[in-house]
């Protein structure tokens, strides 16, 4: 069972995502939510690193938070899985422990 890492701040605001990527383990998952979803954009400053990390971890973004910020599916990096609130719950159940990088 991998660890679920939660990122809720944008990469322009804090280094939380980069710092998280430095320490993730193989098989872990990262969920981008709230302002954290800005990292999921193709144009985000951390896009290259995020794509590189996909060999090791799976990256998810919370769809309602993308929609709330006007981020369309085609603007999202390839390889990022969009999840609903229900998907968020499922990720929480299938991972252990959960660490949020505020």
């Amino acid at each position, binding site marked *: 069972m991998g*660890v679920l890492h939660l990122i809720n701040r944008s990469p322009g605001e804090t280094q939380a995502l980069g710092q998280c990527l430095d*320490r993730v383990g193989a098989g*872990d998952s990262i969920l981008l939510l709230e302002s954290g979803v800005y990292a999921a954009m193709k144009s985000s400053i951390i896009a290259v690193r995020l794509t590189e990390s996909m060999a090791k971890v799976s990256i998810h973004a919370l769809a309602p938070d993308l929609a709330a910020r006007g981020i369309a599916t085609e603007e999202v990096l390839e390889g990022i899985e969009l999840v609903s609130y229900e998907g968020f719950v499922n990720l929480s159940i299938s991972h252990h422990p959960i660490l949020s990088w505020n």
Partner: protein
Amino acid sequence: MKKFLFVMRHPPYQGIGILENLDMIMTVAAFDQCVNILFLDDGVFLLKANQTPDHPHVKPSSPVFAALAMYDVETLWVEQESLSERGLSLSKLMLPAQSINRAEIANLIAEADIVVNC
């Protein structure tokens, strides 16, 4: 008994959050749980030796860290890379701590029952 891991990534003097977190940590430890603390990134500055705040309205966290010894906190883990990136080493910290490499962090997190971001 649960294995708790508290992760500290922020420097000192950013409000009273750190003191509240220390109270939480000491309470958990006082309930005989297994408590470890991991210091990453600027969080390693929390343990820097010789902090001498003289502002009357700033409640320092450094003396409170020393009180952790009263509650059988297992280990203070400090990431080696976070230390060296900031020109620090274990000998420049105010408390005995254990260094851990970045590559080993994922395991430390995965082994915990409960991880708390501080």
